[in-house]
């Protein structure tokens, strides 16, 4: 009854935690492993034009929800220009305007992108009408009609039709008709425009899409025209030169349509230069940036919203429940006895600063020397609180001495002990001396090593890289820790060391 209630509570807690983790992992892309990194592309467009001296306006197309990418960040660098962005169903524009501008003007647009692993969303907008069959100039018209009827007989639907058409146009050994059509310049913008015209001859709606091929360390990139045809359901993209269907992973769709990329009023027509670079970034920061872009409420209420310094404090504090869980396991499942319930957790936190080996050496030395001095203090018959204060003072002086000596010996580690929990150490020494006196050295040694073992295990768990990552990125996993603690709270079975303690009873009972 009672324990089933606890099990249900624990189950609910675990489910809540797991679903939150699932959501944050799947929807926000927070990684489950600490070192996961992704490529982040930085694309910068540099817009140059000459202003006439009066008011100047520049209108520049920028990507809108590029398929297959997540926009992490964008910047508009434009010294004294006013900036507005506008978007419609297809495109997004940056509008720069200034009252007075003369001479060479430079504007920058920069964005950071990362690949989104999930599938492309189909591009359906807008739904076009069937284009009328254009009047081709002769003799081009005859060539096109011949090509179209040939392609039609070798294809089944709009996609295969387009592919077939492109493969014929891209053939290395063009016949007379193809050569005539390719006169426009294979792969050029004019050629792609002509391609749309040709497709109109088959009453297939088509449009130009400008894409930016992403390559690391490109200084002067340009947009490349691609083609999209509508198959009654969605727009299907084709690389007009290779004839491949669909956007490749390394192309960024910049804009759809064939208006000029940049329109300048009050100045000479401008030119645009693209530079591209790539760097690796941890997925945590990618997710963090992206969530900020999308205004996710969840990220607003996450630890990432805190200042970095506070974040670092929480990176440590959030591990303490795990340390406490370790103590629960060690005490209630193993049966290890320690000085004070959570003293080992604090010692383990101190080991974070000193590294494990040095921490253990420090701890043992401080306790042994402190204990010896404490036994001397016993002779002075001091009252408890002044005696504790005296032990504390001695502990601090020993730590200082330790640091000074280690500097002289060029041991850098000795310097990192400053945060050793001196008060806890003083209390430990005090309690240990009482146990030593009351219950003998064996008991004191047992408790001392028990505490040290618990501290070491606590340290190993609390500094575990993956656990630290999970707890910090998904703090809701603390609910799982809580659930485990609840379940262990009702564990009434034997402790491991009790099996040893009662071994005589088994031996006796098993005697024939």
């Amino acid at each position, binding site marked *: 009854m009672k324990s089933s209630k606890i099990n249900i509570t624990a189950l609910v807690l675990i489910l809540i935690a797991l679903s939150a983790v699932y959501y944050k992992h799947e929807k926000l892309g927070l990684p489950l492993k600490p070192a996961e990194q992704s490529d982040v592309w930085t694309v910068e467009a540099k817009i140059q034009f000459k202003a006439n001296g009066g008011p100047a306006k520049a209108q520049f197309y920028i990507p809108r929800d590029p398929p297959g990418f997540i926009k992490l960040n964008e910047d508009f660098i434009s010294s004294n220009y006013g900036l507005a962005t506008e978007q419609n169903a297809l495109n997004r524009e940056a509008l720069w305007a200034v009252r007075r501008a003369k001479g060479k003007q430079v504007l920058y647009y920069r964005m950071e992108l990362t690949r989104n692993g999930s599938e492309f969303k189909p591009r359906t907008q807008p739904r076009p009408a069937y284009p009328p069959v254009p009047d081709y100039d002769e003799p081009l018209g005859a060539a096109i009609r011949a090509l179209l009827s040939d392609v039609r007989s070798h294809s089944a639907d709009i996609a295969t039709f387009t592919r077939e058409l492109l493969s014929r146009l891209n053939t290395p050994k063009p016949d007379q008709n193809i050569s005539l059509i390719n006169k426009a310049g294979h792969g050029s913008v004019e050629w792609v425009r002509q391609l749309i015209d040709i497709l109109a001859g088959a009453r297939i709606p088509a449009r130009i899409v400008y894409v930016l091929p992403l390559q690391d360390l490109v200084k002067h990139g340009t947009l490349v025209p691609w083609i999209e045809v509508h198959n009654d359901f969605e727009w299907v993209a084709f690389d007009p030169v290779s004839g491949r269907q669909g956007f490749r992973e390394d192309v960024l769709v910049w804009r759809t349509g064939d208006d000029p990329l940049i329109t300048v009023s009050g100045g000479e027509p401008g030119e645009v230069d693209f530079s591209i670079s790539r760097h690796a970034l941890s997925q945590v920061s990618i997710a963090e940036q992206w969530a900020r872009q999308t205004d996710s409420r969840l990220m607003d209420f996450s630890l990432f919203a805190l200042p970095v310094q506070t974040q670092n404090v929480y990176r440590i504090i959030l591990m303490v429940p795990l340390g406490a869980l370790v103590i629960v396991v060690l005490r*209630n499942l193993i*049966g290890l006895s320690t000085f004070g319930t959570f003293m080992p957790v604090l010692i383990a936190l101190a080991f974070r600063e000193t590294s494990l080996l040095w921490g253990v050496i420090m701890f043992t030395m401080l306790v042994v020397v402190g204990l010896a001095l404490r036994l001397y203090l016993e002779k002075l*018959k001091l*009252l*408890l*609180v002044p005696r504790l204060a005296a032990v504390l003072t001695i502990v601090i002086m020993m730590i200082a001495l330790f640091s000074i000596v280690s500097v002289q010996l060029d041991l850098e580690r000795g310097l990192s002990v400053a945060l050793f929990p001196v008060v806890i150490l003083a209390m430990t020494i005090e309690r240990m001396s*009482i146990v030593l006196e*009351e*219950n*003998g050295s064996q*008991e004191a040694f047992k408790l001392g090593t028990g505490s040290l073992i618990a501290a070491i295990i606590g340290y190993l768990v609390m500094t575990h890289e993956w656990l630290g990552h999970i707890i910090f990125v998904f703090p809701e996993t603390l609910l799982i820790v809580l659930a485990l603690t609840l379940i262990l709270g*009702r*564990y*009434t*079975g*034997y*402790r491991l060391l*009790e*099996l040893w*303690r*009662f*071994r*005589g*009873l*088994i031996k*006796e*009972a*098993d*005697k024939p």
Partner: protein
Amino acid sequence: MKMPWTRLRELGIVGMNQRNAEFIMPYNQRRYYPLVDNKIITKQRAIEKNIPVPQLYGHIELEHQAAHLPALLSQYTEFVIKPANGSGGNGIMVIAGKTASGHFRKSNDSVVHIDEIKHHVSNILSGMYSLGGETDTAIIEYRVKFDPCFENVSFKGVPDIRLIVFRGIPLFAMIRLPTRQSDGRANLHQGAVGVGIDLGTGLTHHGVMQSRPILEHPDTGFPLTGIQIPQWDRILEMAATCYELAPLGYLGVDLVMDRELGPMMLELNARPGLAIQIANQQGLEPILKYAQTLGTIPASAKRRVKVGKLIRQKFAREST
């Protein structure tokens, strides 16, 4: 080959977790803990119930009262100083007499200066030995005179008898005999010998020391089994009555035998340990579980003792 935990379950051995969750938590209400944790309160209530206890000579609550200590102690040559809220026998100083020069002498024959006693008292007051480290009271009481019936089987120190009283019914008993290793203390952890006592007869059986079976006292060499505990029924009745002064369902009662005054209740324990199972070579679980099912518990202590004896007969361990 059965796993050790399955074997222990079969033997009905109660572990620490089970003791806490199934017996202490449901049967011992926290608000009654001060009745057993504070030895002054326990003593007063025991006197009301006519349970003999070592006489209280005086108590010291505040540091400045320690000034009166020499005057108070001068009336006595033998006494015990202990913390009122102590646990596990910690912080106990036993004064066994005076030297010719007027100094006090401890039970281990070392001489103590009055300043040392004062220091010990102030340590007690500052909470060094109390359960939560809170400030404490030092009590000075009658030093139990060691009954000769245990002379052959104890080394220095006073043996004490521990009973487990469940729902007012005495169910388990053992005697703890000090050894050289335990330095005269009746504490099993420190190497005292635990000997199970047959609840029906008061005869000792099975000795254990540090979890190992033992037949003779390690220091005196006398056999540990077959010793008749004097006034056994009186002891059982006293233990059963203790339930009335502190209504804790799972209670440990510690008694000592005084040469002149007979059995005396020394202290009560709200969290009695599990070593009694080793001393008795028998698990607590089936017996406690059976006692849990009893509908009505008799109001008189005498009747409860009878119930306890009947239960133990019912669950008698197969004689070996």
